[in-house]
């Protein structure tokens, strides 16, 4: 009996490690895969790409809302060491500018309320963010603009407004 104790304890330890590892790495892997898929479908790095109106044929991520117009910007701070200037153009109906890190956390959301919203997104670093800036918790992630647009007419209006969105690296 005793001779099985050490192998059993090893098995238990490895079970705990495997359990924790799956939980830790799964969100990051799913986010990586989603960014890869978005990139393959033409979503730009450091520029907003306007998505087509959401339908079963155009959906690129799980649980998209057919009532919203989406614009997506992929970011990689290794290629924008001085940060990214992100601007959401004003929209009369509901709109939000949201930021997601590589672990899927929504680390910042700015609501439009009919106004333009702008923020300077900085690479991961210690310390607090100054006014008008935000610090990305991870080097890579996704920036998403949502605009309420349940009808084809509203989607066309949101698409026109989205031309004024910006997501560009800061340069000297």
């Amino acid at each position: 009996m005793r001779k099985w104790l050490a192998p059993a304890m090893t098995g238990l330890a490895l079970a705990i490690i495997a359990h924790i590892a799956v939980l830790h790495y799964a969100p990051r892997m799913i986010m990586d895969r989603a960014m890869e898929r978005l990139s393959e479908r033409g979503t730009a790095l450091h520029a907003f790409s306007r998505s087509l109106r959401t339908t079963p044929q155009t959906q690129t991520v799980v649980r998209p809302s057919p009532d919203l117009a989406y614009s997506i910007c992929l970011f990689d701070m290794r290629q924008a060491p001085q940060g990214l200037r992100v601007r959401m153009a004003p929209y009369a109906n509901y709109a939000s500018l949201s930021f997601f890190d590589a672990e899927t956390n929504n680390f910042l959301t700015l609501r439009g309320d009919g106004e333009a919203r702008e923020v300077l997104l900085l690479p991961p670093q210690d310390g607090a963010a100054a006014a008008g800036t935000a610090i990305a918790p991870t080097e890579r992630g996704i920036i998403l603009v949502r605009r309420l647009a349940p009808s084809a007419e509203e989607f066309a209006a949101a698409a026109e407004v989205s031309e004024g969105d910006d997501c560009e690296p800061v340069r000297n």
Partner: protein
Amino acid sequence: MKRALAFLVAGLIGIGIGAYSALAMSGLLPGETRSFAGLDIHGWVGDLTTGSADASPYVRARIARHGLLALAKSEAIYFTREQDDHGGLLNERCRYRLSGGPMPSQWWSVTLYNSESYLPDNSDGALSFDASRAGEGAWSAIVSPNKPAEGENWISSRNAGRFDLTLRLYVPDEGVLDRPAEMIEMPVIERLDCEGDSA
């Protein structure tokens, strides 16, 4: 040699059990959507830590798989329902009436997704129902694979197989995050009939 084999077998079994249990408990196995929902309001399940760094590892993994890019609670809260009022799993073989009243938020919608968390493959253009069509008071919509009678709101379940409905509340009213069960009058899902029911 025998002892080394015992360690190897125990190690492999341990890794298998550990990995499988993590996948199962976080809803990452195929066909599984619910796990560790912090809130259950009349069968609509959700978790107010969705999208935030406070989410448990299980919630984070589940959201990554079934609700990637979900917003944190101050902007939106999400609830999903997989069962009708009889406790049966929602599926396209049946017709349902979804009904409710005003929701405590700036805007809301109910959207149908298949068991893989995608919009089902149909071209009906009727996969959600939202506040802009509901008006001010009571509202209802038929959830069915075929278009209902003129004048009825419709959410199409064509080609959905087994599905669920997701309720989104954007910009929840003050107090909702503290007392969701008191403040949200959840929509009711009444099963009307199913294919093969005797007439």
